[in-house]
């Protein structure tokens, strides 16, 4: 860095943008074709999901638009296809392209929602455990250990069974998105808590934290205003991986029949719905949503890998 000149100070917003433009992150992104491709793919998928009501030719949730006689039609490049259904139709006669758009929407919503919940719990618990230490630390980390000893799948099966038994299957279907966000969010918070705790332990020894204490600031303000902003890079990196994980978890749960109902399918429940027709020749009902899921998760994971390489200073390559 050059010595600061006495030029007029830039506005904070402009300064932030300029800082991003000057950063190693941006530099690395500009010359990494893989990262650019992944981000473009991810943005395209997210855009498609957000714009589903306008992009989709039919509304798959509207029973009046579904024609059961048009079921199991193949995609456009196979003989016997109907030009109205570009990617063919599923067993109920729903347009596959429309339902994939809506399904991607559901998958992303659950993925981001669950990660938001995980991050919220994990960051708060990790920050408290790392900064306060002692008994709070011991208690929260043992809680995390216990939580980690149950797999996500097991938690989902138990919670799903209990909710279905007590409140009925209809209730579960109506609130399936919320239930899945809660289950995946609660099952995976220790990942965040451990990561955050480790970086808090490193940060709280630095002298700027002592300076804040000497100033007389309250612990809460030191934690959230001083320590937390300096632990953001690992949180950022782990978030990408966790979103991909949450989407996969949701797909797995849906595939096992514990997730989204077929009337309101996610990519996972689409794969499951088509699975029964795989042997009877209608492979597209499973494979096309499957391909979307793979591309979505792969682009997030590759982006996360790239981010981890860039943000870990020990891996700097020049």
């Amino acid at each position, binding site marked *: 860095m050059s010595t600061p000149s006495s030029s007029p*100070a830039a506005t904070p917003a402009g300064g932030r943008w300029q800082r991003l433009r000057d950063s190693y992150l941006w530099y690395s992104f500009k010359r990494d074709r893989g990262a650019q491709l992944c981000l473009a793919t991810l943005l395209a998928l997210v855009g498609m999901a957000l714009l589903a009501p306008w992009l989709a030719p039919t509304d798959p949730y509207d029973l009046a638009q579904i024609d059961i006689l048009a079921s199991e039609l193949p995609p456009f490049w196979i003989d016997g296809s109907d030009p109205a259904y570009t990617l063919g139709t599923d067993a109920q006669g729903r347009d596959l392209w429309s339902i994939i758009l809506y399904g991607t929407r559901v998958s992303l919503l659950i993925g981001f929602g669950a990660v938001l919940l995980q991050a919220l719990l994990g960051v708060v618990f990790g920050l408290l455990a790392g900064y306060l230490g002692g008994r709070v630390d011991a208690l929260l980390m043992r809680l995390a250990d216990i939580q980690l000893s149950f797999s996500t799948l097991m938690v989902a099966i138990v919670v799903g069974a209990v909710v279905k038994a007590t409140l009925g299957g209809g209730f579960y279907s109506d609130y399936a998105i919320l239930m899945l966000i809660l289950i995946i969010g609660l099952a995976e918070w220790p990942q965040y808590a451990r990561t955050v705790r480790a970086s808090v332990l490193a940060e709280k020894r630095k*002298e700027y934290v*002592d*300076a804040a204490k000497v100033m007389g600031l309250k612990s809460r303000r030191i934690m959230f205003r001083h320590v937390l902003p300096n632990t953001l890079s690992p949180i950022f990196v782990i978030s990408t991986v966790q979103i991909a994980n949450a989407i996969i978890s949701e797909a797995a749960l849906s595939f096992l029949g514990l997730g989204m109902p077929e009337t309101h399918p996610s990519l996972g429940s689409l794969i499951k719905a088509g699975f029964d027709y795989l042997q009877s020749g209608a492979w597209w009902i499973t494979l096309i949503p499957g391909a979307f899921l793979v591309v979505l998760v792969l682009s997030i994971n590759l982006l996360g890998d790239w981010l981890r390489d860039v943000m870990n200073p020990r891996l700097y390559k020049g």
Partner: protein
Amino acid sequence: MTAQALSHTETPTEPRRQAARPSDQENAPLLEIRGLRKRFDLSGDFLEQLRFKGGRLVRHQEFVHAINGVDLSIRRGEALCVVGESGCGKSTVARTVMGLLSPSAGEIHYDGTRIDDLSPKALLPYRKRMQMIFQNPYASLNPRMTIQQTLEEPIRLHHPDWDRERVTAKVREVMASVGIDPEWGARFGHEFSGGQRQRIAIARALAVDPEFIVADEPISALDVSIQAQVLNLLMDAQQERHLTYLFITHDLAVVEHFGTRVAVMYLGTVCEVAPTRTLFATPRHPYTQALLSAIPRLEDDRPQPIRLTGEVPTPVNLPSGCVFHGRCPHAEARCRREVPRLVAQADGSQVACHGVEEGRL
């Protein structure tokens, strides 16, 4: 071991820089440390402390004795330098005084009030009066905050009633006073050099107009060419703002230049406290003598430096009696048995040495 608790005798020495101060509070110490002890637990939590010994389960604890009964008093307007080699507990004294560590035993009094047992809320008014400057300017500024934010934070905390213009004006004033262009407020810490960062850290300490500053080796991480600038800045600030310093250092040249009084520490105890000139002219304690004779000098006509034998003992297992007895050329049976107390001498210094007390040194 706590026999020396009452030895903080006030000796009226000529205060060099106190001349301009009003004389009513002259003799009341601003900060008083009494019988301070701090030990750090090495042995982990309860389960890790359990050991098998001779077929029985026993609880085994180990401590690092960082400070072992320190008595110091700092008068208004003076700069008390604490010197000693690495690991002698000087930084621990500074951090305990500022409340970053809680003492294992002993008391800290600030302006007549005991502050080491106050709640954070009750301590807040004292936080405004005493501030700290840290050793490493690369770690003491929050990397995610601009200089403006860093400097505004203490002012907003301690003056919640000030409006925006007043806070900004204060930040500009304090930045200018440490030689940092007030226009640089929107920049981040990493955009500055080490010396500039330390100036900003000093500005942060001065922002709440404190009267007492603890400086924990504030120049030892800086380039030699910058050290003098920052030291002069601290001295100018002392004159303009009538500051009192507790200055931790291991650089004897800095002590000679900066300090009005010096406390020499060895293995968590104070062995000698004296006005700077007296200490450099006539060191009394054998350790101080060895320390001063180790300063490299140009002239060739003085005797060989005193070479101490052995190593500093580990602070985990403290030696009995005087902590220095294993390396002291004048140690006798009493030194191995009895802990020496700080005793006032005729020349205004205080020495903790049986030999000096008995008149054989």
